[in-house]
């Protein structure tokens, strides 16, 4: 966890190391164009070091980044401790020369764009808000308020990543822990349907496989790592045991393991059904029952395939069963930097994690009805506020067709397919690099961001707050009580 000594209450203060200051005095103005990766040894006073900064590219939310920032060029020249994805995240988020706002592709002032956005949302009969997983909790909160005021739906990218797990949590419950506990205790680590080597590179090295912990003095040597997947991914070399399951047979395999753990008989055709030999299963069950602390990390190989929430539910149930023998937890491996925050914020504001509708003046939850893919594919939405995500390039075709038809308001740090088709497109500052705020790591631990340098563009929170205030100013008076509650 970060030490919080050098932060103000809102966590926006950053730290300049004494060494960098001393260097700055010694050689002012030198090395202005420090090459990527260059140490700030003789950097000028425009070189700043931000200690314990946070990478928000993936759900690992590593908060041990030491960033070297070139304030003159407004870019991060070195990100110590970052993985390959984190390095790209920090290196590529420079300040690009783009208008802060576009209306119908034409440059506009932020004020004009805010007004147009507010008007679109107010006039719509079924406005939807979507995205939010790459935005701070503070911005997410305002987005929920907007959806409440305009009586639309609010949904996050959770619905197309671990939404099924969210459904399973409600049905089965969750045996859970923080990643710190995993690091200090887990001697059996199972990854199921995920490829952290490519999606969360430091999951192995910082949290779950190689680090030494209180009860794991020798790091990886003291742990057994199992990988279950349909294909041999680049994560396989990290594992001690690789189990290849037939595509679409995860549920059957998980349920078989539950049966074995609970001493039930299983039929002889298990290998034919799941692709996994009986001996492999017996060996895994023995390990699960005899470990001193086990963890099942599960990825989207379970939630995005046949079975969806049943698959997630089966993992959760298996972990719960195993607590007869040893402490055993199950954790979804979350993708985007603050998708976990989105679940938390939407839950504490509405009572539900995603796919929430305010049309009747109170929140209702119904995946399949209020989730964004469905609302768009059925052509129901007539306006969309899209924050920090790009549905126009990763949604099913039918949903994209609706997005092309309706007015879209987009907030993103880079041009995307979605910003290209948007009626109103805002360029925003990057969270964690240009703006402070709070994000939740995949194990629900909140982390305060330490921005590196200022952006000429406003952050999501600022734009959304302006849109919310404009909506409140423009809407006909005394429309409903719920909106008043959401007012500042």
């Amino acid at each position, binding site marked *: 966890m970060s030490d919080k000594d050098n932060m103000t209450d809102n966590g926006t203060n950053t730290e300049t190391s004494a060494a960098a200051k001393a260097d700055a005095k010694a050689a002012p103005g030198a090395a202005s164009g420090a090459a990527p990766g260059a140490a700030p040894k003789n950097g000028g006073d425009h070189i700043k070091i931000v200690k314990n900064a946070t990478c928000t*590219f993936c759900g690992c939310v590593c908060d041990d980044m030491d960033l070297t920032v070139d304030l003159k060029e407004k870019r991060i020249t070195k990100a110590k401790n970052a993985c*390959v*994805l984190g390095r*790209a*995240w920090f*290196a*590529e*988020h420079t300040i690009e020369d783009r208008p802060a706002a576009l209306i119908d592709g034409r440059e506009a002032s932020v004020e004009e764009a805010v007004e147009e956005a507010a008007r679109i949302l107010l006039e719509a009969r079924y406005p939807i808000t979507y995205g939010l997983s790459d935005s701070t909790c503070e911005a997410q909160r305002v987005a929920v308020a907007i959806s409440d005021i305009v009586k639309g739906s609010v*949904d996050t990218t959770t*619905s*197309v990543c671990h*939404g*099924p797990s969210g*459904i399973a949590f409600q049905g089965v419950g969750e045996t859970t822990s923080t990643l710190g506990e995993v690091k200090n205790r887990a001697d059996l680590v199972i990854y199921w349907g995920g*490829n952290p*080597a*490519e*999606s969360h*590179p430091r999951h192995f090295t910082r949290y779950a496989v190689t680090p030494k912990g209180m009860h794991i003095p020798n790091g990886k040597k003291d742990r057994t790592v199992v990988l279950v997947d*349909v*294909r*041999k991914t680049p994560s396989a070399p990290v594992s001690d045991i690789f189990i*290849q399951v037939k*595509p*679409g047979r995860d549920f059957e395999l998980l349920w078989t393991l539950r049966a074995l753990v609970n001493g039930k008989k299983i039929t002889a055709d298990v290998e034919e059904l799941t692709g996994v030999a009986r001996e492999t299963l017996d060996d895994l069950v023995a390990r699960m029952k005899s470990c001193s602390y086990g963890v099942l990390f599960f990825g*989207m*190989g379970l*939630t*995005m*395939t*046949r079975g*969806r*929430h049943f698959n997630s539910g089966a993992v959760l149930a298996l972990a719960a069963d195993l607590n007869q023998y040893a402490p055993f937890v199950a954790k979804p491996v979350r*993708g985007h930097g603050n998708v976990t925050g989105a679940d938390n914020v939407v839950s504490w504001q509405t009572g539900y994690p*995603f*796919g929430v509708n305010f049309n009747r003046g109170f929140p209702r939850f119904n*995946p*399949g*009805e209020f*989730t*964004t*893919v*469905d609302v768009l*594919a059925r052509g129901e939405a007539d306006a969309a506020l899209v924050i920090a995500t*790009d549905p126009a*390039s*990763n*949604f*099913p*075709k*039918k*949903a*994209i067709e609706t997005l092309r038809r309706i007015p879209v308001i987009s907030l993103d740090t*880079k*041009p*995307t*397919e979605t910003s*290209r088709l948007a009626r109103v497109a805002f360029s925003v500052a990057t969270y964690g690099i240009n703006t402070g705020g709070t994000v939740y790591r995949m194990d629900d631990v909140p982390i305060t961001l330490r921005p590196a340098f200022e952006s000429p563009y406003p952050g999501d929170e600022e734009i959304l707050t302006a849109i919310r205030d404009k909506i409140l100013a423009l809407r006909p008076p005394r429309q409903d009580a719920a909106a008043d509650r959401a007012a500042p």
Partner: protein
Amino acid sequence: MTLIPGRTSKQGTSLNAGKLKAEYLEVTSTVEMNEDDMKKMKLKDGDRVRLRSPEGEVVVTCRPKKASDLPSGIIFMAYGPSSSELMGSDTAGSGMPLSKQIEVRVEAVGAGEEG
């Protein structure tokens, strides 16, 4: 064949550079296939193939993978515009389309056939 779209480090790093840039477009329009399947279909590394699902079709470049890494009948590609084109929108009431299990037909694209 069953198409499994997923994340790769290259897709991740090129995404940071920008989704409208050439590198991202290239990594998201390449498909990995079991080498034996490729042989059966008389495909070479770098050949173009057409993937067809009930939703739509795309033409992508195909690369071989060892049979021990990628079983026969499965093809893999990085998430992106091409996988979206093939993805169905039915979520079976869950909000989640079957994004990692898309049934597709694969056929070789003859030279000059690509418009």
